């Protein structure tokens, strides 16, 4: 391993500019003549818009335009779409309601844009927005996914009777019913997977600019996937043909999924820039983000796990209601279906699984992918069921897991996924050692002496990453392919630019991708730069989410590098006057086998461009190659997280006193970056488990609409994390990478809740396990505790 190659803990190249304040985020960009836009949002969760009077707002100082949904419709700007088709059990397609970028006729959630003001300054835009008179006829609202399908519930969209988008299922109901009928034991759980607000450090932002000379549009946008944004805005919204729209994602400060989607605001900025003839800028405010960014999770589930003799799992069934909010966001339909139910086998050899999912509309902010996207929900169902079952069966949760682990690979689950490789027991054994599980009983006794309740919880999770084989996802309804592209451009001096269709918004691609190139070409990491996030520079790409950049994006780079090496060998053969088959390339040197002839990488690069040693008939000049890589399977990162908690029974406060994570991510490019990804993921998972919660009142007002009421995890909520890995390289891609971006958020919630319920000896506890919730659970369970 070289100091900067694969496996080295190289410091992040991008951090210099971030730490010195030189990052260029969308808000740092000012365009000549730029104007500012303010979105007037519906204060009501559900209301008819009977009239909008913009006359006095238009006369306010600095105002350039006041626009409404009627103007948008008048200009024939298309609706936002959900790009993944799901069919119900009965074969009918999902009920996608129209989603105009500005509400027209009706507002469907508190925060739905109803009008915009474009003005010289943001203050002027806001002042004018206060002069817009909107008459609302307030309608009853429904926010609870478990109630929205009831007869008599307010009807949100005409196309979706009973607010039901689809009733989907996966698996074999008959096989599952049979297994349950003959089960020796059945464990049942009712689970609410709490709704989360993403809260990336950088709020979303957009600048739309129209050039009337060329009729070209440019969008600077906080997006995780600029090409997909361009495709949707061109092909579905119909703003401009694809070649007339450039999307630039400059530095982006975190996304966690929330910046995948194509939102109203960027569409409106583009449209408005043509209307006013000047660039239009929007920067989301923090409080506005609570209403403008797609939320995550929000499932209500009943799940059951059946066992045969001796704790052998025989079947699992689950019925989930997934809240998709007021409109279907870009990928919302895929999250509670193919990214959820397909993982319900967990790490276990489960012969039969059946899952039903109803996706529903409510008068709430749209819900879509959020770090983990479907897989945290699945892991929570499976890992809670297993832990509870162990307690009910009076078995050691470790033994129960071990007994049921998938042990031979490849393994076909009953829910589509084909696990390629893994060693689940290895991760669990290592984690138990690091967590000193053997010493737990003594630690528990010691805590009891101090009046504290101590608990230990496991989460042996699995996720499907490296999203995704295009043909496979196409057969499941995806509107796009999920390959990735790369272009490797070697300059005449030997330095290299890599253009990738994946996108970094915190992941560190500029470092890890450069490590790959440094290792393969034997050149210093400083001589490599990574280019991403601009549709005019980068060939098409699918962006970054689903832990795909390493497994899919880097695989594309490997393919392009192989082509570059092959071409460079041809150049070297002309340069050194040797047969191409005799050229050996190693550590940045080309040699001719069996001789002392050699040429350095930079010499060969130069000769590729000056083309003095070969004719055009022999070889094309230049050294630049592109590749598209389409994976053949998902990747399956898996591992074991162990959480140890201490609970103050008097207040219900939970302190996480120990955390061990042993993950199998396959090949690791940069262990420091991987560790950072795991840390962040665990923090988010702990946030979900202990404190984060988007709470609506019955009228559809978001009660936790700012950081004063929405609790984010802080450093003090986490103990020092003990992170380690086991490695079974992924056989499906050239580098053996599985992906690590989501693991922490997927594993953590179940580990926390399993630990708390172990401590308080009751399963009756929902997320987030806030102090009052734990206190109430402890009180309810007090008799059981007292009896011990």
């Amino acid at each position, binding site marked *: 391993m070289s100091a900067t190659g694969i496996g080295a803990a190289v410091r992040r190249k991008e951090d210099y500019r971030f730490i010195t304040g030189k990052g260029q985020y969308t808000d740092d960009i000012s365009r000549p003549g730029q104007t500012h836009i303010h979105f007037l949002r519906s204060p009501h969760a559900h209301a008819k818009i009977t009239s909008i009077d913009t006359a006095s707002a238009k006369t306010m100082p600095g105002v350039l335009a006041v626009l409404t949904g009627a103007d948008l419709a008048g200009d024939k700007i298309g609706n936002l779409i959900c790009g993944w088709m799901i069919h119900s059990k009965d074969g009918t397609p999902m009920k996608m309601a129209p989603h105009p970028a500005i509400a027209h006729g009706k507002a469907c959630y508190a925060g739905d844009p109803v009008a915009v003001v474009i003005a010289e300054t943001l203050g002027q835009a806001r002042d004018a927005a206060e002069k817009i008179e909107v008459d609302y006829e307030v309608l009853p609202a429904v926010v609870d996914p478990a109630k929205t399908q009831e007869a008599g519930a307010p009807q949100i969209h005409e196309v979706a009777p009973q607010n039901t988008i689809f009733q989907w299922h996966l698996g074999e109901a008959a096989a599952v019913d049979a297994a349950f009928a003959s089960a020796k034991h059945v464990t049942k759980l009712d689970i609410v997977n709490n709704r989360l607000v993403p809260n990336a450090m950088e709020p979303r932002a957009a600048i739309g600019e129209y050039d009337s000379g060329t009729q070209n549009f440019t969008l600077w946008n906080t997006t995780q996937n600029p090409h997909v944004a361009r495709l949707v805005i061109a092909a579905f919204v119909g703003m401009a043909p694809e070649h007339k729209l450039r999307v630039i994602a400059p530095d982006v400060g975190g996304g966690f999924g929330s910046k995948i989607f194509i939102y109203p605001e960027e569409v409106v900025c583009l449209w408005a820039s043509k209307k006013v003839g000047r660039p239009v800028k929007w920067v989301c405010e923090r409080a506005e983000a609570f209403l403008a960014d797609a939320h995550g999770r929000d499932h209500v589930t009943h799940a059951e796990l059946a066992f045969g003799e001796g704790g052998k799992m025989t079947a699992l069934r689950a019925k989930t209601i997934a809240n998709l909010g007021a409109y279907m966001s870009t990928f919302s339909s895929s999250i509670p279906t193919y990214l959820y139910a397909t993982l319900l086998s967990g790490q276990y050899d489960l012969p039969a699984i059946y899952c039903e999912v109803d996706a529903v509309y409510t008068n709430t902010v749209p819900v879509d992918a959020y770090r983990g996207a479907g897989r945290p929900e699945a892991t929570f169902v499976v890992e809670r069921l297993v832990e509870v079952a162990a307690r009910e069966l009076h078995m050691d949760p470790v033994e129960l897991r071990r007994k049921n682990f998938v042990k031979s690979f490849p393994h076909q689950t009953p829910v589509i996924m084909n696990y390629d490789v893994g060693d689940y027991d290895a991760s669990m054994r290592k984690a138990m050692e690091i967590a000193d599980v053997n010493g737990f009983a003594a630690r528990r006794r010691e805590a009891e002496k101090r009046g504290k309740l101590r608990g230990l919880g496991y989460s042996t999770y699995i996720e499907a990453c490296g999203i995704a084989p295009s043909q496979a996802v196409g057969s499941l309804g995806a509107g796009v392919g999920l390959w990735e592209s790369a272009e490797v451009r070697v300059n005449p001096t030997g330095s290299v630019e890599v253009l990738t269709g994946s996108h970094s918004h915190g992941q560190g691609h500029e470092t890890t991708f450069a490590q790959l190139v440094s290792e393969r070409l034997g050149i210093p990491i400083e001589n490599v730069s990574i280019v991403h996030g601009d549709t005019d520079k980068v060939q098409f790409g699918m962006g970054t989410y689903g832990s795909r950049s390493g497994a899919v994006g880097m695989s594309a780079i490997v393919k392009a590098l192989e082509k570059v090496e092959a071409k460079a060998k041809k150049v070297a053969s002309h340069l050194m006057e040797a047969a191409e088959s005799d050229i050996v390339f190693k550590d940045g040197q080309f040699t001719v086998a069996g001789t002392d002839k050699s040429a350095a990488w930079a010499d060969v690069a130069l000769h590729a461009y000056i083309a003095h040693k070969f004719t055009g008939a022999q070889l094309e000049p230049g050294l630049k190659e592109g590749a598209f890589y389409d994976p053949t399977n998902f990747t399956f990162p898996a591992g074991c997280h162990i959480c140890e908690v201490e609970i103050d029974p*008097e207040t219900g406060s939970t302190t996480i006193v120990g955390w061990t994570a042993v993950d199998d991510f396959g090949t690791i490019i940069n262990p420091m970056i991987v560790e950072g990804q795991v840390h962040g993921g665990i923090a988010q998972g702990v946030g979900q488990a202990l404190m984060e919660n988007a709470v609506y009142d019955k009228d559809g007002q978001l*009660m936790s609409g700012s950081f004063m009421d929405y*609790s984010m995890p802080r450093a003090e909520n986490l103990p020092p994390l003990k992170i380690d890995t086991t490695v079974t390289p992924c056989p499906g891609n050239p580098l053996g990478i599985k992906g690590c971006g989501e693991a922490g958020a997927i594993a953590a919630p179940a580990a926390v809740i399993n630990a708390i319920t172990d401590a308080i000896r009751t399963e009756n506890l929902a997320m987030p396990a806030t102090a009052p919730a734990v206190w109430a659970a402890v009180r309810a369970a007090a008799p059981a505790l007292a009896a011990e």
Partner: protein
Amino acid sequence: MYNFTYHRASGLRQATNLLGKLDEAKLLAGGQTLLPTMKQRLAAPANLVDLNKVEGLSGIELQGRALVIGAMTRHAEVASSPVVQQAIPALAHLAGLIGDPAVRHMGTLGGSVANNDPNADYPAACLALAATIITTKRKLIADEFFTGLFETALMPDEIVVKVSFPLPKKAAYEKFRNPASRYALVGVFVAKRPSEIRVAVTGAGTSGVFRVPAFEEALKKRFSPKALDGLGVPADGMSSDIHGGAEYRAHLVGVMAKRAVAAAME
């Protein structure tokens, strides 16, 4: 934020005059409450009178048997002051629990008591320590100063100048934080004074900071956490929100009171 006119007062008299003369004028201290509400357009004072350059409003001094702290003294100064740590360690501890470092370096004692947020920490200290709030017009004892949710006895052109805290024999503050805002979900300040015991509760009550006479009497008989066994406050009158119901808050008042007594005895 709406437009407003900014006035920098150089003395208390000038600040008082500006307050009296100007329309919709408000004092600006640390700005930690006022500025966010103005940014969100929830408050729209036409005039701001800045106290930050007024001489003599800031400082910590031991005057006989009382600790006197100027209105513009920042929470961070109180938290780190050796004088406070020596005289009333519970008060230094309390100041160090307010918000986060940025808030503590801007927020002021005067702003906090004038604002009388039902979840703020200082009102509990003032009430339990039987502090006197000294204004440009008069001296008010804490029991008269705090009159309800975000309500005080201050008149529109009256300015808090300093607060005088009589030294207790023993005191402690126990705070159970709201996990989101870090204000007190429940905070209990217990003070053993030469003549009496006071227990003041913030965060929990529907009408702001309050005392608990039943706890005070029990502690007067015996200053020990055990003295509070079996005693509680009724859930009635406790506030209830997404961070905790009335019953939970009522329960926490008892738990935090016991812990405060235990801490005061250390």
